């Protein structure tokens, strides 16, 4: 059954609203503040990288988006609806891959897919078959004994089979072997080509997700460090490969736009923020050659953690 054409036209206008909006969202578990006054708005058709260290609040944020958790203070709207009032119509447009998933262990993979497929008005069996083949997942296998990696593959298939408008992926490739991970990433990149959905990917493997994301949300200790377009971040942050032409480079660069550096007296790699116009001044001051290198997400991440809110 490929009932995608059956998707109602009424769903389309909702896509114009932000995919999700958090306003002053605070979540407390007893005395622990998991999210602290987070305000974020993500436009539709974005691919968002949700990054942060362990315990920074990423999973808590994702669970607010599907209404499993309720804010202690503030608001959360998903697909234009307050998340505590998400109903069948909205939830049918969301796909989720949880970080830790316990599926129904007595079912086979096939039975499990059929069961979850029954939740939705449309289900793409062609996509299901293709993914099962590419990810080498046996339909007849029981879910209980599946390895964590295979459970993750099943989770992805269950999350995308109904072509959701909003796909939330919490560590979707963390348990996969390198070959499966590559296949999964290829597939996720393909999903992006469809271009009509919002994807939120939370992952620690930043090199994987940076190929996909166009927006980055960085959380640290429950607080929002930054929410910005990835291109904008790459413009704001970069690395200068500094080579001394005469004299020695200093041990410490006092410029405010320098946010990190490493190297020796002759060569240094300097991380800078908002420093585009300062380049010639820097060259002159230190009598150095400077080559500009864009930062990848892995190098960017520690700098974002130090970003002042």
């Amino acid at each position: 059954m490929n009932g995608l054409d059956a998707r109602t036209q009424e769903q389309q206008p909702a896509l114009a609203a932000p995919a999700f909006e958090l306003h002053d969202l605070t979540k407390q578990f007893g005395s622990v503040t998991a999210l602290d006054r987070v305000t974020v708005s993500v436009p539709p058709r974005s691919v968002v990288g949700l990054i942060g260290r362990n315990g920074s609040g990423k999973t808590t944020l994702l669970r607010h988006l599907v209404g499993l958790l309720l804010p202690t203070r503030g608001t959360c709207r998903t697909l234009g609806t307050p998340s505590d009032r998400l109903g069948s119509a909205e939830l049918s447009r969301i796909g989720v891959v949880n970080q830790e998933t316990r599926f129904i262990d007595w079912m086979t993979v096939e039975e499990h897919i059929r069961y979850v497929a029954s939740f939705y008005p449309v289900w793409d069996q062609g996509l299901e078959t293709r993914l099962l083949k590419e990810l080498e997942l046996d339909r007849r296998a029981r879910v209980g004994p599946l390895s964590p990696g295979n459970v993750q593959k099943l989770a992805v298939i269950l999350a995308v089979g109904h072509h959701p408008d909003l796909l939330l992926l919490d560590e979707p490739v963390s348990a996969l072997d390198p070959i499966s991970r590559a296949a999964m990433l290829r597939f996720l990149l393909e999903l992006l080509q469809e271009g009509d959905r919002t994807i939120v990917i939370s992952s620690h493997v930043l090199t994987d997700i940076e190929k996909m994301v166009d927006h980055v949300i960085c959380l640290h200790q429950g607080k929002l460090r930054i929410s910005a377009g990835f291109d904008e971040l790459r413009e704001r942050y970069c690395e200068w490969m500094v080579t001394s032409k005469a004299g020695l480079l200093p041990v410490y660069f006092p410029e405010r736009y320098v946010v990190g550096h490493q190297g020796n007296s002759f060569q240094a790699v300097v991380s800078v923020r908002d420093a585009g116009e300062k380049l010639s001044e820097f060259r002159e001051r230190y009598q150095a050659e400077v080559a500009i290198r864009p930062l990848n997400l892995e190098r960017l991440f520690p700098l974002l953690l130090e970003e002042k809110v």
Partner: protein
Amino acid sequence: MNPAALPRLLRRPLFLLWLLVGTSTVLFLATFDFNFHGYRGNAVNVLMSLHPSSGRDSALHVLRYLSLCTPAVMGFLIGQTVQELYHTSFAWSLPGLRRSIAGQVALVGAVLAVLVVLGYRALGGSGNPVALAALALVWFLLGTGVEGSMLQLRLSATGLSSLAALVVAGVFVDPVYAWVTGHPWPGAAAALLLAAGILWWEYGTEAARRRPGIPTLPLLSTLSGSAKERYRREIRAHASGPGTPWTESLAGARTATWVRADAYESFGYRRGGGARVLWGTSALTVFFVGLFAFQSGLEVAGGRAEGLRFALATFLQTPVSGGGGHTPPYLLLGWFLGTVLWAYLATPTSLRLQSLPYPLSRSELAGVAYRSGLHYGIRFCLAAGVLFGAGTAILFLLGFRTGSLTALPGFVRALAVAFILVPFPLAFRDTGRLHSCSGRASNRIGLISVGSILATAGLVAVATRWLPAGLGHSGPLVEALVLAALIAASQLGYRRWLQGYFRKADLAC
């Protein structure tokens, strides 16, 4: 294991709460036992005003009963805590853990046994202190084994050992104490040998080899999501079998369809798993009810041979309105235990909100939870009805016809009372779900649970004493109306509670 490990395990706030419940249970059991012997007055008062000439037998009986119940209940509570650690998979590889646990359990048991004997003798009990202490140690160790016994019970019929031994000891408490008092040194030797055997059986290497990885459901952790989830997985593994997979569409489905889906997820509704769980636990419920009824029969009949027949007859005849005047409290307690057991252990239904993407709003989830509870409540009562009906028929065929054909109204009354009680354990279960989302809320949840248990005990007391008395002269129509009103009230209250819960609670950890 650190020598302070056991005290540290026992220092949890929940343990203290359960300790209170345990103490109440001892008094409750003693009082009921006392009442069943037909003695007038209050068991505690008798204890406090022992007199050499009057009431000597009844006081001794209460003393013996208390000296059995106290170490057994304490053992049960400590066993809960210890077994929770003992059955984890890592316990097997921790050096010296098993020996250390066994040693510390024995030490605690010995200290408790000494205290029990001191109390026993201070209140006028007599007998060789060594023999009495050895006996108390046996009760304590049997108590610690109840959790493991329940675990085995789920896997095979051999698991009744500790539980059955305690029940038998409870029934024959007077002869046991009389024999030990009359033969102190053989009695002490036999008791110590038994204690060593229990210790080896429960905490020896073979027991540990047999049990690691097998999930336990310690009472102390019934509110722990992980322990419950492990147990549920085991139930599902047992319940699954060949059959038809799910074929209905759930897109925009009605609540009733989701209730069926819930059952399908939980134990393979269409695969025989549902029937197995339903009938298995109904049988367990019958066992519990029968146990109490049997004991009451023996007690009332003074241990005579017709005790069993008396118990069955009175049970079938007068479950609520108390024609015999003796069985209702035990029967209601039995019903209640059965329903608690059923709700906690046998109906692991609840949608997997953290794992599966149900397209259901919070109010729809509340509706599914309520309907699911209602559905299983009805099935539980029907299953129990069929089982007891079969019992009635067998009795009738065996020629024991006193009241067996006129038992129907009382029997229906019993089912109605069970149906009134069903929402309470279901509420406990849902409270557990709340707890599973936040381990930080354990104290609060513990208090809620204890409060709920006390409230339920109050309800049982009302249903036991006042309801039958009030309805005794009113006729069947009024009685039916009152029972219907009580059922409606408990169902409505439960539904409201669920709606509030799903509106406000976090549904994930």
